[in-house]
């Protein structure tokens, strides 16, 4: 078996223009070196039943042996408040916050700490291994501890705190359940003996949701907390639980109170990594590994679902012990991409142990875009980088109960899957849940991504290269542009092209990207949508960090997790997330078709409809037998219509001017409708009984001579190479492409 993970890496930036610098950040636990070769990707799918792996080796300065070192990844999010004189000389004090723990009892966790684990000194408030709240003080080998008697409940708000009074030599830990009935009460105050004097460690940050392993503000942390924290406070006196409650409840505590040491307001600067202290000490901090912000606080009352409308109700951050946004690896190789390179899918290939039973062949993918305003072709293919990020390191099949039933057969796992099962520190995808069951809403490219590269699992990236392979086979020139660039530069990215193709699964779309396609189509552009489930989820890109997306899943849509009530707006921008359909933009309006279902039993063929016989679309059907099935073959389920599928739906905006060309509406019992298609529950909803579960082929003209052609199926592009590329799917796609590149008005 080929070892695809012995060396891993990521390219930064993920996307470059010809002539721009790029760095490869590599790591290996087992190899001290590998052979590096730059390749251009034509087909990334090694399956011998299709085109097979097709990579072109390029002459490149960095080709050759590369020395490798092990670079660990440190997951777990927290807030670091740099050390300060105020914190270093605390006498009597109280710390506390509102908590909504999600994994109490899983392992020891930290809420608030100024603690050095290496010398076991300082103070910390946290959960012990059983999930009980504990408050610990320690210095010079001596420690004092008090703990609540009952573990905290999962996903229940409590007020939690610890207090220390050197004058009395007492410490206390305090819990107050905010819904103390029906068996939920965990309220308790436990007092114990503490020191009468004590000196704190120097050079130690205050950490929220973790504790420092050793000295310094850059110290690594451990004992991360899973769950929400709202309004953490530090006060320079030993407060009673009522006093702590008043302190935490006040959204704006009196900054002039000389005893107020810190009062963090997580509802400020939500799109950023900054945490703000409202006290006069200004103990601001910075977040590590991107915990989830814009989370409902203890005071959220349902009057708004967006943090922008009621920021004071969004004072919580949800920290995860497995959050991972930046692997932080040092660069291993630097390259200035030659300005002569064509835009395209590229990768750094790393080989070792050639000739062994387990040869190493691992890839680090990147994209070379056509420089803005300098098109090299009349055709552009869009690398769906937003979708690639959304699916980055998906562990859906490993973790989710429904996977085998959904896929209608045994899970087939690759070497990458075996690795991901054991190496969750890579960070998962927006399809996955964190260890605490909450959804993964952020994805970045500053980490190895196993499923966006040659030999990776084919869904999305691999499938899309089947289209590249077909274009190369045709001898058709094309530019590569990416979602990230369309988001940033809008329609300017698309406008130079007579025709733009989106791939098998352009599912994750920001408002900026949607607007760009809409403007392109209405400005006379021709858009070939050769996929399924496209333009489905609304995402945002981070306002400043490249290749970083956020999405929220709400109560509608085909979703592998469901966000909490009130948490469907994006922290990066304040925009609502969830499906575009629930944002008033069903994909049917833009593409003619929109998502309606999945089929994994077996893909199907399309049958031509009357629309296809209209002389006005004779150019589309030229050379095609309209009485024969269209696409009764293909590498994804033996048909061109399958996996995720879209249909024409006038009530959701399919244009009146649309020509309904063909349909695949006989999908059998494996055709499963998406949940937002169901008003009520009844039997008879599967494809063997339900004509609304289908894939449709559609064409419509847009303003100024533009047009849209849609296939509504992920399986389509993986049928192009059938029978030596001579087949009716290839013929129809080619007919449309030729006509769309011809500037004669349609």
């Amino acid at each position, binding site marked *: *078996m080929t070892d695809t993970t012995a060396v891993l890496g990521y390219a930064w930036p993920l996307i470059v223009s010809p002539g721009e610098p790029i760095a490869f950040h590599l790591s290996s636990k087992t190899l001290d070196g590998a052979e590096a070769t730059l390749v251009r990707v034509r087909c990334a799918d090694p399956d011998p039943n299709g085109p097979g792996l097709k990579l072109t080796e390029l002459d490149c300065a960095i080709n050759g042996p590369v020395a490798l070192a092990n670079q660990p990844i440190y997951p777990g999010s927290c807030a670091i408040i740099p050390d300060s004189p105020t914190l270093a000389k605390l006498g009597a004090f109280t710390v506390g916050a509102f908590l909504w723990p999600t994994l109490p009892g899983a392992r020891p966790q930290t809420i608030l700490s100024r603690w050095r684990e290496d010398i076991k000194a300082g103070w910390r408030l946290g959960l012990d291994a059983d999930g009980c709240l504990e408050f610990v003080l320690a210095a010079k080998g001596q420690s004092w501890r008090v703990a609540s008697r009952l573990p905290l409940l999962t996903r229940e708000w409590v007020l939690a705190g610890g207090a220390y009074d050197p004058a009395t030599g007492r410490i206390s830990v305090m819990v107050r359940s905010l819904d103390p009935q029906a068996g939920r009460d965990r309220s308790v105050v436990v007092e114990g003996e503490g020191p009468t004097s004590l000196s704190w460690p120097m050079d130690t940050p205050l950490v929220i949701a973790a504790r420092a392993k050793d000295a310094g503000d850059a110290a690594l942390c451990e004992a991360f907390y899973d769950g929400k924290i709202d309004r953490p406070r530090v006060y320079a006196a030993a407060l009673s639980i009522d006093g702590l409650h008043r302190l935490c409840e006040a959204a704006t505590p009196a900054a002039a109170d000389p005893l107020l040491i810190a009062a963090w307001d997580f509802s400020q600067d939500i799109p950023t990594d900054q945490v703000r202290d409202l006290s006069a000490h200004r103990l601001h901090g910075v977040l590590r590994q991107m915990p989830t912000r814009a989370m409902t606080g203890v005071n959220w009352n349902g009057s708004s679902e967006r943090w922008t409308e009621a920021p004071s109700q969004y004072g919580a951050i949800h920290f995860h012990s497995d959050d991972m946004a930046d692997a932080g690896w040092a660069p291993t190789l630097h390259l200035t991409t030659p300005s002569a390179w064509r835009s395209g899918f590229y990768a750094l290939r790393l080989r070792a142990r050639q000739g062994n039973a387990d040869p190493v062949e691992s890839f680090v993918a990147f994209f070379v875009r056509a420089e803005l305003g300098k098109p090299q072709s009349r055709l552009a293919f869009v690398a769906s980088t937003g979708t690639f990020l959304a699916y980055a390191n998906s562990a859906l099949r490993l973790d989710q109960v429904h996977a085998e039933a959904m896929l209608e057969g*045994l899970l087939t796992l690759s070497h990458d899957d075996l690795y991901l099962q054991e190496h969750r520190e890579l960070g998962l995808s927006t399809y996955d849940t964190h260890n605490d069951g909450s959804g993964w809403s952020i994805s970045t490219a500053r980490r190895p991504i196993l499923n966006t590269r040659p030999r990776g699992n084919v869904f999305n990236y691999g499938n899309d290269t089947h289209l590249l392979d077909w274009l190369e086979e045709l001898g058709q020139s094309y530019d590569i542009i990416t979602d990230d660039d369309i988001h940033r530069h809008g329609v300017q990215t698309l406008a130079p092209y007579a025709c733009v193709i989106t791939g098998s699964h352009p599912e994750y779309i920001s408002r900026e990207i949607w607007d760009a396609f809409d403007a392109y189509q209405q400005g006379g552009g021709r858009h070939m949508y050769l996929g399924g489930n496209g333009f489905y989820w609304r995402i945002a890109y981070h306002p400043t960090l490249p290749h970083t997306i956020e999405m929220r899943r709400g109560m509608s849509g085909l979703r592998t997790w469901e966000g909490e009530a009130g948490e469907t707006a994006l922290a990066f921008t304040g925009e609502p997330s969830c499906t575009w359909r629930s944002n008033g933009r069903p994909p049917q309006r833009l593409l003619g078709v929109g998502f309606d279902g999945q089929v994994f039993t*077996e893909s199907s063929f399309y049958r031509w409809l009357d629309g296809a016989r209209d002389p006005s679309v004779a150019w589309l059907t030229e050379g095609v037998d309209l009485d024969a099935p269209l696409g009764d073959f293909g590498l994804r389920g033996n048909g061109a219509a399958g996996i995720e599928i879209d249909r024409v739906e006038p009530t959701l905006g399919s244009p009146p001017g649309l020509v309904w060309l063909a349909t695949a509406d006989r999908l059998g019992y494996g055709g499963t409708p998406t949940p937002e298609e169901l008003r009520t529950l009844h039997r008879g909803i599967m494809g063997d009984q339900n004509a609304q579960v289908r894939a449709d082929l559609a064409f419509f003209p847009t303003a100024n001579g533009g047009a849209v052609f849609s296939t509504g199926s992920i399986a389509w592009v993986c049928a192009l190479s059938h029978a030596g590329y001579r087949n009716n799917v290839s013929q129809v796609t080619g007919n449309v492409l030729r006509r769309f590149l011809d500037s004669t008005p349609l």
Partner: protein
Amino acid sequence: MLVNYTAAAHWPIDASRLDLVEEFRRKPRGPHGDELQKLLHRMRWSGDSEASGRYVLVVKEPGRRWALGRLPRMRGKPIEILSNQVFTSIAEAEWEVFKRRWEALTGTSLPPSFKEPMA
């Protein structure tokens, strides 16, 4: 939280329905009749033992060879590969796993005629 419970699939399996076993052997990839669909749903949802994990295939050679494996329920625990169980077709692998699941879920042994490899 919206949870998929492992115990949700509870269609009762009748150990005397060897006709369903025969139907699966003939067509491991379907299409299947109504009752076999229900049986397969039961098996695929959570048919394998909690302790040893889910039966999976591990790709030895893309599109050509697969080994049987067991995926633990717990994240982070390694996937066990049963190196003596290697298949050259997915259908053959589906049949092997079907037999194992049938015997585990019904607590009965399949008659010898089903032990032979697929035709």
